């Protein structure tokens, strides 16, 4: 006997992601899912962003990693509330992991939450967390062909930050090709070129982020 099913396989995750999102909306908390390959500069970009955020925006961070608390320790040094999730080998964060991490953060005091996903350009794209902004960080040494090889990751991005721009000449990085690859699957998505090392371009990215947060806040109060 054939039984029609037509059910999304990741619906259990999506359901929890929806609940996370509801909670974030109630709290007025904006949440960024930070995705990138290992070593692209997720933690560096978060740190550079934290440094430049206006004081009125109080941030927190969830650090996802296969193991260790190296990244969480770096954030904690800045006296920003942080909680570490070790996935124990799992290659992405999922919505239930985020939900259980939330109880360790002073959510009432926060306006902006960064969730640093596990370094990986594949699986994190398939698991919603309840975030309202998906940030994909690329980096120059990875090469300008990455959007063509990992289109799924770039499809869901709300914004792309290309890090290690200071190395563009050394790696003969073709920005036009990179951005064409991104816009092929995701037209109109903003792409910022930054170097977390020199600080170049970071102000522009943070200005865009703050502007977006203010717009969301204004529409929530409207």
């Amino acid at each position, binding site marked *: *006997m054939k039984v029609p*099913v037509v059910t999304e396989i990741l619906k259990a995750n999506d359901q929890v992601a929806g609940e996370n999102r509801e909670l974030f909306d109630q709290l007025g908390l904006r949440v960024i899912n930070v995705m990138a390959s290992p070593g692209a500069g997720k933690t560096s970009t978060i740190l550079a962003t934290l440094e430049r955020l206006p004081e009125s925006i109080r941030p927190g961070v969830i650090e996802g990693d296969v193991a260790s608390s190296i990244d969480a320790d770096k954030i904690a040094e800045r006296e920003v509330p942080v909680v570490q999730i070790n996935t124990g080998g799992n290659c992405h964060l999922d919505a239930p992991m985020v939900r259980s991490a939330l109880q360790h953060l002073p959510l009432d005091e926060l306006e902006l939450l960064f969730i640093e996903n596990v370094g990986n350009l594949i699986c994190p794209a398939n698991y919603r967390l309840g975030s309202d902004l998906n940030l994909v960080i690329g980096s120059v040494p990875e090469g300008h062909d990455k959007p063509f090889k990992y289109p799924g990751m770039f499809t869901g991005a709300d914004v792309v930050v290309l890090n290690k721009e200071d190395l563009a000449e050394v790696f003969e990085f073709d920005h036009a*090709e990179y951005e064409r690859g991104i816009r092929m699957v995701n037209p109109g998505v903003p792409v910022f070129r930054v170097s977390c090392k020199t600080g170049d371009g970071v102000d522009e990215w943070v200005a865009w982020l703050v502007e977006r947060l203010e717009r969301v806040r204004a529409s929530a109060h409207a």
Partner: protein
Amino acid sequence: MHELPATQGLLDVALDAARKAGASRIRSIDLVVGDLTSFVDDSIQFYFDIISRDTPAEGAELRFRREPAEGRCGECGHTFPVKPPVPRLCPECGSLTLRIEGGREFYVDSIEVDE
């Protein structure tokens, strides 16, 4: 590692559907998988054979229907199926103005069961 949680999700969906249908055993599961999801059929099957042991889905055959993404040329309007790595140029006219959509499907379409 990548396919394990996804396979667990697929097993849960199939077992739930079988239970609701009052079925005692699942013979096969028809899945639809988009080509941009990065899920690998063999790897899903591998995990499925392990985690379905001692469930009504043990020994079930997984049948994969692959859905490519669709490429559309902004220049000549040519449409064509796309799998990663996505092409740089329109295969018809060589234009760089491609738009790619779809290929993100991941669902259980139906199951075949014994009553």
